[in-house]
């Protein structure tokens, strides 16, 4: 039972990361490889706030980290992706590769490559014989809230329309007076903030290590592919399920096997049903 819950948390983390990829992809049609490292940066921001800057309250540190990571995401977008938008998605993709290793290098230089843990004293909730950290509960709550918000946005098809419009022809829209750049930046902020939540949650569970970004990126990719890049709700559900399954796989076999298994499934889906299990329908966000 505890494993199930652990898997749920991992799944939520993966969902957030996958959502981040999907959000950016939906609006710019490019895969932001730096996203995993942004997640890692979020986790390390929190560590920095807690240990180095001596923020007492864990929840404030989390809040600051989320905002800081959001700003980081927007900064990266403005400096690196925005100038390349007109030059094709390939160039943005290459830049994101570059940024991913830059972020990894910077974090490793500042925090060394050894594993770290948050020094927090947190209240736990006791349900029967299991105890949950407060932050773990919050993660799940945020997940549920996001799911509800996204489902509700189905009726607000104007948002979906805006996304599709921007993804197809941003320059023309900008000429019409729509603040395309601002909207894109907002998406980056959101996606990075989600990544920060994911990173902090992960760090609470498993600790911090600079390679955490890449490992979970691969899994988030797998979820995105299996669920389909267009369907956000599918990604959330898929992510949670995936997390539970992967968690069992790691616990009862090896993490290598779990990795290989995940990627094989992803490869199979790519070949047999590349649009994913929940292919993007035009009306859905």
């Amino acid at each position: 039972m505890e494993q199930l819950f652990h898997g749920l948390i991992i799944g939520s983390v993966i969902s957030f990361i996958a959502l981040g990829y999907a959000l950016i992809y939906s609006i710019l049609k490019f895969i932001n490889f730096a996203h995993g490292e942004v997640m890692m940066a979020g986790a390390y921001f929190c560590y920095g706030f807690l240990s180095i800057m001596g923020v007492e309250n864990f929840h404030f540190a989390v809040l600051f980290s989320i905002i800081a990571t959001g700003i980081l995401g927007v900064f990266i977008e403005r400096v690196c992706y925005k100038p390349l938008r007109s030059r094709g998605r390939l160039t943005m993709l290459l830049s994101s590769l570059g940024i991913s290793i830059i972020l990894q290098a910077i974090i490793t230089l500042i925090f060394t490559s050894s594993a770290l843990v948050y020094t927090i004293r947190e209240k736990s909730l006791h349900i029967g014989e299991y105890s949950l950290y407060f932050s773990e509960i919050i993660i799940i709550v945020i997940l549920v809230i996001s799911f509800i918000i996204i489902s509700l946005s189905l009726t607000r098809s104007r948002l979906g329309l805006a996304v599709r419009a921007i993804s197809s022809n941003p320059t023309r829209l900008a000429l019409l007076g729509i603040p395309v750049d601002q909207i894109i930046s907002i998406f980056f902020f959101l996606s990075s903030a989600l990544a920060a939540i994911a990173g902090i949650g992960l760090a609470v569970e498993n600790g911090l290590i600079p390679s955490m970004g890449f490992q979970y990126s691969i899994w988030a990719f797998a979820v995105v592919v299996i669920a389909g890049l267009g369907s956000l709700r599918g990604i959330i559900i898929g992510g949670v399920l995936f997390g539970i399954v992967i968690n069992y796989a790691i616990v009862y076999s090896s993490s290598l096997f779990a990795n290989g298994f995940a990627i094989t499934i992803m490869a199979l889906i790519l070949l047999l049903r590349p649009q994913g299990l929940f292919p993007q329908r035009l009306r859905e966000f």
Partner: protein
Amino acid sequence: MEYLASIVANFLIYALIIISLNNFIIGKTSIWSIGHIAFFGIGALTTGIMVHDFLMPGWSAILPGLLISFFLSLFVGLSTLRLSGDYFIILSIGLCEITRAVSHELKGPAGMSGIVRPTLGGMSLDNDWMFILLVILPIFIAVIVLSVRFSRSPLERICSLVRQNENAARFMKINPLYYKVGCLCIGSLIAALTGSIHAFFARSTDPSIITLYQTVLFFSMVLFGGINSLYGSILGSLMLVAVPRILEYFINSPMASSYSYQIIQLMYGFLLIFVVRFMPQGVMGGSKNWFYPQENT
């Protein structure tokens, strides 16, 4: 002496990897083989296992690696029929990760060692320089000759056509699939061969080359040198070999050297971003049009 030999060998091996990527795949097709380095790993691992565990005679141990790479690249090339660019990239990366996972599974995170070099006509190749002169250098020259022949043949024109507009190629009685997959196969085979040769030279394998980090390094060199430029590829290899040595020379403190890996990472990350933004045609003036998506008539 050994140190210099390893530098020269690394230069040649890196050059072979970059050429196989730049001058046969990236520069000739619109295929984004981000997982390309996997073929190097496959060549190395297969050869190592064949020689070490199955006691296969040295030179023939290269063949299984080539065979696997051939069929895998065939598979990857054909998958472009079904997968759009972004999904293909994910597949390519996935393949790279699978290769790394297999390597870890079979031989552990540090790879294998104790690979015996084959003999050449009874003559031992244990001397590093002999190996370089009789094995690595000839292969290097052969690949360069192949690349030059390519750019002077009708193939170059046809590949440019296919790269820009596949439908237009079809109207000209050219089958784009044949050329795309063919180029991919050749590039992958060269990478696999290079992997096998490296396994012999280093007498070991090291899966740490099959990571995204190394991929970024190689891609940044491809772009920096210039897409489809042979001189550019060689320049890129020179950079990869020279930069860490220069860094070592200037930053002498022992503490810094433990961070040299990260510093190099930082440098190449910035280099990639810089080149993509400000110098997409690279130092040696490769093709600029390569970044634009396929035209659709």
